[in-house]
């Protein structure tokens, strides 16, 4: 079972390395989206510092949502997905492996880039640390929750737009606690409560989302 998990993670990472544009589009979307806000709001650093948590988190939400389309779509098209569903391995484990690989490819770069972008918004080093921590804890939940939406819309026309409609409302708690933690740190209230809520959401989605995703995949792969 662990071997199968490892096999799928390594396979997806290898595929990502062979096809680098997938990683880069998500990352650049994140960078561009965040860089656009000062152009719209104005370069006033006080304002930027205030809106930074929200901007970063909304950009992360959108970036991870855009990346969802590729989570199952290619496997679905070339038949590897249906083979995954009828292997003697528990499908939830394989789905978890795919989500982990997806997070490593699309989530981790956002976490690593956030300090650099945080400097653009004149965030304090403490705020940047909390921002990284919340992104690190929150983006896996986004991948897990998003996987349900990606599985449900597999092979449908207008799948990309539909995914956003299904998934974004479910992302709201992560957005609230993620951005809230940074904001609370900036304002000196301390974001520990928010961060533990993010952790709780992660654990809950870790347990429940693979079940829902597998059920959805079985419906979509029929």
């Amino acid at each position, binding site marked *: 079972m662990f071997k*199968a998990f490892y096999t799928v993670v390594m396979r997806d990472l290898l*595929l990502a390395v062979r096809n680098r544009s997938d990683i880069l589009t998500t990352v650049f979307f994140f960078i561009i989206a965040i860089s656009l806000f000062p152009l719209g709001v104005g370069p006033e650093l006080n304002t930027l510092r205030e809106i930074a948590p929200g901007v970063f988190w909304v950009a992360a939400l959108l970036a991870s949502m855009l990346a969802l389309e590729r989570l199952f779509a290619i496997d679905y098209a070339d038949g*590897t997905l249906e083979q995954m569903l*009828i292997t003697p391995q528990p499908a939830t484990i394989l789905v978890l492996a795919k989500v982990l690989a997806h997070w490593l490819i699309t989530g981790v770069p956002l976490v690593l880039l956030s300090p650099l972008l945080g400097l653009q918004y004149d965030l304090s080093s403490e705020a940047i640390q909390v921002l990284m921590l919340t992104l690190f804890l929150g983006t896996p939940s986004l991948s897990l929750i998003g996987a349900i939406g990606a599985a449900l819309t597999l092979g449908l026309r207008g799948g990309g737009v539909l995914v956003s409609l299904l998934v974004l409302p479910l992302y709201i708690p992560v957005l609230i606690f993620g951005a809230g933690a940074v904001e609370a740190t900036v304002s000196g209230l301390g974001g520990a409560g928010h961060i533990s809520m993010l952790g709780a959401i992660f654990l809950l989605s870790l347990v429940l989302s693979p079940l829902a995703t597998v059920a959805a995949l079985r419906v979509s792969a029929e």
Partner: protein
Amino acid sequence: MLEVNNLEVIRGDRSLFSELGFSLNTGELLHLLGHNGSGKTTLLRTLCGLIKPSQGVVSWKGMNIRRQRDEFALEMLFLGHLNGIKADLTAVENLRILSRLDGLDVSDDELWQVLEKMGLYGHEDLAVGVLSQGQKRRVSLARLLLSKSPLWLLDEPFTALDKAAVDFLQTVIAEHVENDGMVILTTHQDVGLTTGEVKQLRLGWKKDGDV
């Protein structure tokens, strides 16, 4: 071993087949016939558990396959229209991953041997995406040579293959049946078997009879 009872599958609002029943024992081959759209592929996908029948049961060793997914998956190999291989990976990588997911412990030497037998010598290390349709099919069919599963479900296995490959595949299938394996396949070709029994099931008639 494999038993199908009162099976009905509805796609869209249309019932593709209903009250379908047959059984398959070791050393038997079932050849599914029927015109395009008669539900051959759907039946195969139902038998391997991908499609949930709207009525009826597919059972394996006396138990519904939907209640023993992992056990059944271990004893069944399904090759569909799609090859189930990744265009960006090489033939060896693809086969290695597939056999690991199938729960097999295969050494790299074996992988290379099997691919050579399938006539892919010299192409093992190329990304599958650059291979021809027939060669992609061969990569996918190489799983048959590694498989330890008694039940093979093959959807149009001969498509895109040249004559030599078709003949080779025929012998592989025949050997499997002779060794007490079971095969269900759809094809427009005649299936030659030296021993063993060939059953035929024709779909898309007014009444679906037993075999």
